[in-house]
């Protein structure tokens, strides 16, 4: 993109650059063209959280334009779904957002249950919510760890992984898997929680808020953290919504919209929690939203434990036929995944396999607002912006 030299640039030249200075009386050709420098960031760059590639157009160190290139992790999940039965597709949903696999399972099984009209036992509902909220904490912890590491705070990374390890141990205890759990089934969950799980979980809920104070001590009012995040990568609420931004990222722009509250599914209408909303519109506001969400999720987990302890025993799996054929029709079910609105659109033709399955991945849509956020900022701020919208490429590319 060649442009005519702007007066701003002339001012800079007059003040002097490492290559010389425009002196009084120098003949300066105003029709001289200056060009943007195009540089490539990723797909192997460590702070792009996977295989995201950005092509940046720079003027000096300022970003004037950006293109997001995705698709390096495309596995054709939607095509695979058309060749698998409804049950067989559950493990593939784990591979979408591999940092919060219970939340991904949750969206899919809810969509299938809505399609077939299956009633889930109440105990299974509470177990599901418990696991999904643990997954949210775990996902946000990993986000905070890597986001802080990108910006230069190493210690937070180690702290966060300490607590994340506790959650992964809980997952292992209940499901046998640490990252890829595949715990949810159509009509319930795979099996009831093991003995002592709830006690261990309670222990975690006791410890966790204190650990959040530890992170606060490192970040909350840290001057370097503030100077790297406040007023960086701003996006207004209207622009964010128009560009498809959802989840914690849009709540950082002051939009009070959480699907757990606005369109409650499962047992969220019986639970008491606050929706974290901050209106800074910048990276710091998104950090505050996720920080508060971790604490709120911890509260939800506590309530679930209380309910499960009060009502021991009971079914965790509705009776679903082995050869499962839902009626002809189409449904869309959305849940609040850790990254935003996760939706599954299923078209059924009455056979054992979905006719068409579309995954509305939150990260895919969130990435669209990245160029808007970064324009006018420095290259180093791109790293902060990517961190602040929390993308997982497994879900972007599907």
């Amino acid at each position, binding site marked *: 993109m060649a442009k005519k030299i702007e007066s701003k640039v002339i001012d800079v030249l007059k003040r002097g650059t490492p290559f010389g200075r425009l002196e009084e009386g120098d003949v300066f050709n105003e029709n001289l063209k200056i060009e943007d420098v195009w540089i490539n960031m990723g797909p192997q760059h460590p702070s792009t959280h996977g295989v995201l590639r950005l092509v940046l157009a720079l003027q000096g160190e300022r970003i004037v334009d950006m293109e997001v290139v*995705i*698709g390096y992790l*495309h596995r*054709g999940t*939607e*095509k*695979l779904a058309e*060749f698998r039965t409804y049950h067989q597709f559950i493990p593939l949903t784990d591979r979408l957002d591999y940092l919060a696999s219970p939340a991904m399972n949750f969206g899919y099984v809810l969509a299938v249950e*809505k*399609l*077939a*009209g*299956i*009633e889930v036992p109440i105990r299974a509902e509470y177990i599901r919510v418990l696991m999904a909220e643990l997954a949210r904490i775990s996902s946000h912890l990993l986000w905070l760890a890597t986001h802080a590491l990108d910006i230069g705070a190493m210690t937070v990374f180690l702290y966060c992984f300490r607590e994340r390890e506790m959650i992964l141990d809980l997952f292992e205890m209940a499901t046998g898997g640490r990252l890829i759990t595949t715990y949810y089934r159509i009509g319930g969950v795979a099996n009831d929680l093991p003995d002592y799980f709830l006690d261990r979980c309670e222990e975690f809920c006791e410890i966790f808020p204190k650990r959040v104070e530890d992170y606060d001590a490192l970040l909350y009012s840290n001057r370097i953290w503030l100077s790297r995040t406040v007023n960086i990568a701003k996006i207004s609420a209207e622009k964010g*919504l*128009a*560009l*498809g931004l*959802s989840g914690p990222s849009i709540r950082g722009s002051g*939009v009070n*919209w959480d699907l757990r509250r*606005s*369109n409650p599914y499962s047992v969220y209408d019986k639970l008491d929690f606050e929706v974290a909303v901050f209106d800074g519109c910048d990276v710091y506001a998104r950090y505050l939203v996720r920080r508060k969400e971790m604490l709120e999720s911890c509260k939800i987990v506590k309530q679930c434990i209380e309910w499960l302890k009060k009502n021991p025993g009971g079914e965790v799996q509705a*009776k*679903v*036929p082995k050869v499962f054929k*839902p*009626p002809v*029709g*189409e*449904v*869309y079910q*959305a849940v609040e995944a850790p990254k935003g*609105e996760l*939706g599954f*659109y299923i*078209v059924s033709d009455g056979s054992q396999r979905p*006719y*068409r399955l*579309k995954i*509305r991945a939150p990260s*895919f*849509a969130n*990435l*669209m607002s990245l160029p808007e956020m970064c324009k006018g900022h420095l290259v180093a701020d791109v790293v902060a912006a990517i961190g602040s919208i929390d993308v997982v490429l497994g879900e972007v*590319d*599907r």
Partner: protein
Amino acid sequence: MAEEPIKDREKADSEVPIDFSKFVEVRKIKEKYPEAIVDLKYFRDELTIVLKKEYLLNVCFLLRDDPETKYNFLTEVIGVHYPNREKPFEVVYHLYSVEYARRVRLKVMLGEDEEVESVYPVWPSANWYERECFDMFGIRFTNHPDLRRILLPEDWEGYPLRKDYPLEGPPGYREKWLKEHLSLYNKL
């Protein structure tokens, strides 16, 4: 026993005739564009409005700007392929209103070579959704600012989510790819 709930729900859906004029979206569209609606469906508490494709953009503007609907969030644009139909492609739009926490589904039917107007002017987020739709189905959107492949490589042949596209790619594709990309090794 196990299948009982399913049957119950089916009955409930089919037996009670639905008065569609109770939906504010339907009322608004009928008021302004009386001949835009082709079909209406109600299944599992979800409203589907099938539109004539000429009216799509106008209806989208109407639903976004009307103070009683305010559909300010485009959730996704989806393609569906029905090879046996006269008009084999369906484009599905899911809209969401953050203020009223409501959803509605719009649909247009397309023939093999037909194009549909892009909804990019209404919601800029349609940019990537429509690119994905083009990538996977080859559905073209008129006036789209940047209609390129998004998930697949730019030189990919065919549209993978069409029903006539085999799961493992077209026959001979793999060999051809290996031949082109590993020509150096083949010489050894």
